[in-house]
């Protein structure tokens, strides 16, 4: 019974994913895949920054995308994200106060959980971020 439900669930999700659902209202995933990933990386301690940059580069490569990296102050990056000039900003602390963006699943050590911010409502891209960026994050 459970095995059957499990199989059905997996098949269902596979079928839905094959239809390309969910879709992004602003088509982020479509323009990133095989195109350019506009990512914002907040300035921070060098080791952390470099680790995150490599991580982002791997993510971009997995989507055959060129990485267009912006760095700077978190607030400004998030504003650019809200305006649609960036596709992705992070890593941010899980308790981040920003409200108008979507957030990935949290990852990292318990006392320093991190999330990635994406444009609000870009659900296909968010799903991809959760699949590839969050789950491959250095723990």
């Amino acid at each position: 019974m459970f095995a059957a439900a499990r199989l059905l669930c997996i098949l269902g999700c596979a079928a839905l994913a094959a239809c390309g659902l969910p879709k992004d209202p602003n088509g982020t995933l479509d323009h990133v895949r095989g195109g350019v990933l506009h990512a914002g990386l907040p300035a921070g301690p060098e080791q952390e920054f470099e680790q995150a940059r490599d991580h982002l580069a791997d993510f971009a490569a997995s989507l055959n995308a060129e990485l267009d990296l912006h760095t700077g102050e978190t607030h400004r990056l998030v504003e650019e994200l809200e305006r649609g000039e960036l596709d992705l900003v992070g890593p941010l602390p899980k308790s981040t106060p920003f409200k108008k963006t979507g957030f990935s699943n949290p990852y990292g050590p318990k006392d320093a959980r991190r999330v990635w911010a994406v444009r609000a409502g870009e659900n296909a891209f968010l799903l991809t971020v959760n699949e590839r960026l969050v789950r491959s994050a250095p723990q």
Partner: protein
Amino acid sequence: MTRMDPNRPESVDDALRRAERLEWQTLFWLVVIIAVMGLVAGGSQAFRTAWMEDMLSLLAPSFFLITRWAERRPHSRGFPYGFHRAGSLAFFLAAAALTAIGGVLLYEGCLTLIRAEHPTVGSWTILGREVWLGWLMIAALVFSVIPPVILGHRKKKIAKVLHDKVLWTDAETNAADWQTGLAGIAGIVGIAFGLWWADAAMAVLISLSVLKDGLTGMVISTIVLLDGAPRKLASMDIDPEAERIVAELESRYENARIQVRETGRYFRANIEPEEEPHITDELADEIMGNDSWRLIDVSVGVRSGWPAPGEKRRPKT
């Protein structure tokens, strides 16, 4: 000491017991549904509105059960008429809550539409793969309509036997729950197709149905609380049973104005001398002091037979 719980046929008592059982089952299933929906509640406005509606549907069954307890309580010095009308009051309160929250939900839905807020729905890691939360929300919504729709149809039948407006309204709301579920699902499917506005639009639709239920309930309970003529179960038309009582009594008494109202599940009729709607000042003065103007009516209950139809006796006053 009179019994406040009047005699009823066994079939009615049976129906009351079944109604109580069904309302307990409704409460149980609603709690399960609210918990399951809470587990997957994500960024969809339509889903959250449907969730709120399910929370609100806890009110009617709870009030029905409280009313069943209250209406059986004996009359007391503080409540000489007993508590038959507790249900009408509860109905009014539930309807007012529905109206208020329906209004808030409508406002929120409209605001989301106007601000063009795009709903973000994330994913869960299940069995090592990312599952979009929207699919889980749809599954929760499908589950959420099954128990209420089944219970709603069963309660409707009993409500007809009992002529119980609270039970009827509750049953109708439950039976129509599939519409809420469908609207919620449409909202999430809309998000899946990248149509951000579909979600807010469905939220508005659901909130309108909550608001409508609330306003209808307020009208019905206001009629009852203002001693309006008894109405049919599902409409504003006057109950033909009540009209029959009026006609029958009119044929037996002359110069009489017949008033029929509903207290809880019971009818009460009053025969009033037509030319003298109120007692005279002298009579009132005899038993009251300064404020005798406040005493306008003294009634005697008919207990020992009435004139035959057509005989047209004057009511003894």
